[in-house]
């Protein structure tokens, strides 16, 4: 007797884990982008916002968010690894001639953009949350605005953030549409809207995020 098939062991189960954790992560990047827009209101506003996050729910709020996000990232990667393994095994002999009719660069390079984002998240946390890796000056805890300006004044750091955001653009533009399909949200009346929504969210998040290093390099923020 073969073992009973389980939800998490199945292909669709893993896809649903991928989609649900994806929703949490998409909402996070939207919130993160919106919060960061306060950099344009000046040092006081951004540092005050950071202060607010650190004291939300007597300091517990930030840790709840961190634990939930970390769990989502871990599950997202776990599902991706499982699905990738199944997919790699499913076609042992490759085609000599490959033709792409419907897929996009975003859909085909999800793993590549995912890896770029994983390394970027590690760098980003060391760079601007914990401060161990802070090219461009000394990291001062709580001085969010000054930390951001000093690190983005280093051209290669700014470039690295911009590259990571291009990877995010690819990952979001396919991921947002794809998670809706995976969760079964497909109806001819709304299908065009799914891709439009994916592109609107992607454009908002990525353009706003890229504007921060660009504004620092252009001298608008200093």
């Amino acid at each position, binding site marked *: 007797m*073969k073992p009973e*098939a389980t*939800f998490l*062991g*199945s*292909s*669709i*189960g*893993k*896809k*649903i884990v991928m989609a649900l954790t994806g929703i949490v992560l998409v909402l996070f990047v939207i919130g993160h982008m919106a919060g960061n827009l306060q950099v344009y209101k000046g040092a006081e506003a951004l540092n005050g916002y950071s202060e607010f996050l650190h004291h939300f729910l007597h300091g517990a709020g930030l840790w709840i968010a961190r634990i939930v996000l970390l769990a989502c990232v871990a599950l997202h990667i776990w599902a991706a690894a499982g*699905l990738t393994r*199944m*997919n790699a*095994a*499913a*076609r*042992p*002999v*490759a*085609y*000599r*001639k*490959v*033709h*792409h*009719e*419907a*897929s*996009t660069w975003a*859909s*085909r390079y*999800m793993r590549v953009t995912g890896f770029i984002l994983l390394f970027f998240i590690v760098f980003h946390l060391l760079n601007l949350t914990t401060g161990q890796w802070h090219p461009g000056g000394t990291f001062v805890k709580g001085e969010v605005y000054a930390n951001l300006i000093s690190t983005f004044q280093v051209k290669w750091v700014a470039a690295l953030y911009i590259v990571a955001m291009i990877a995010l653009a690819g990952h979001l533009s*396919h991921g947002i*549409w*794809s998670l809706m*399909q*995976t*969760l*079964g*949200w*497909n*109806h*001819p009346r709304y299908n065009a809207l799914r891709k439009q929504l994916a592109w609107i969210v992607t454009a908002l998040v990525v353009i706003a995020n890229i504007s921060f290093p660009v504004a620092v390099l252009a001298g608008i923020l200093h």
Partner: protein
Amino acid sequence: MAKNLNLTLQVWRQKDAKSEGGFKSYKAEGISDDMSFLEMLDIVNEGLIKAGDEPIAFDHDCREGICGMCSMVINGRPHGPKDRTTTCQLHMRSFQDGDEIVIEPWRAKAFPVQRDLVVDRSAFDRVVAAGGFITANTGAAPDANAIPVPKEKADLAMAAAECIGCGACVAACPNASAMLFVSAKVSHLAHLPQGQAERMIRVRDMVAQMDDEEFGTCTNHGECEAACPKSVQLENIALMNRDYLKASLTYRPEVDAGGGL
């Protein structure tokens, strides 16, 4: 006015399931552009037989686009360059004189190559046997329209039931996933009243069998829908995902001898 074409074919040749295969080059000369792609292969094979070589083995049956046998990837596209077309319905007028045409079998672990371009698609049969039916007494055919079905539902069921099980979706999918096929088989019954009683068991069992056959998984590229000769829609995969989630949440383990009997 029919034109004649001279073509170079790069064809996958493989003696049997256990042998190593490889590409071999063949000239196809004086091919009328009115011929179907399979007729072109027939001409090439006649030449090979006359020269004392082994003809190229390929699957074919009805040659009218409904049996789903003529599985071959032509220049990177299952069933060739035309949309909504099986290989037998592809005509040589879709090619230019002097073209090189690469012809490969379906590539998937679940579809082992038997010989040359012939693959074993019985994994599909096992997926259907796992639940792609309704359990009912057979006998005389019931009266048509004995169970009323609204037209919209009947249309959706029929659109899914158009699937001919050719395997082009698996062949086109960058992940060799069979989800378009399996979802078509789940969906054509899910739209009909007769399919409701076993709807949740069906989707669970068929997905389990699909995974067992070692097909890949869907990452929503959409290549399957573009390759399908019968235009089976991605909407079916969404329905299967929905039903699978629901079935997984509401599944009741089997009980021995129900009701204490």
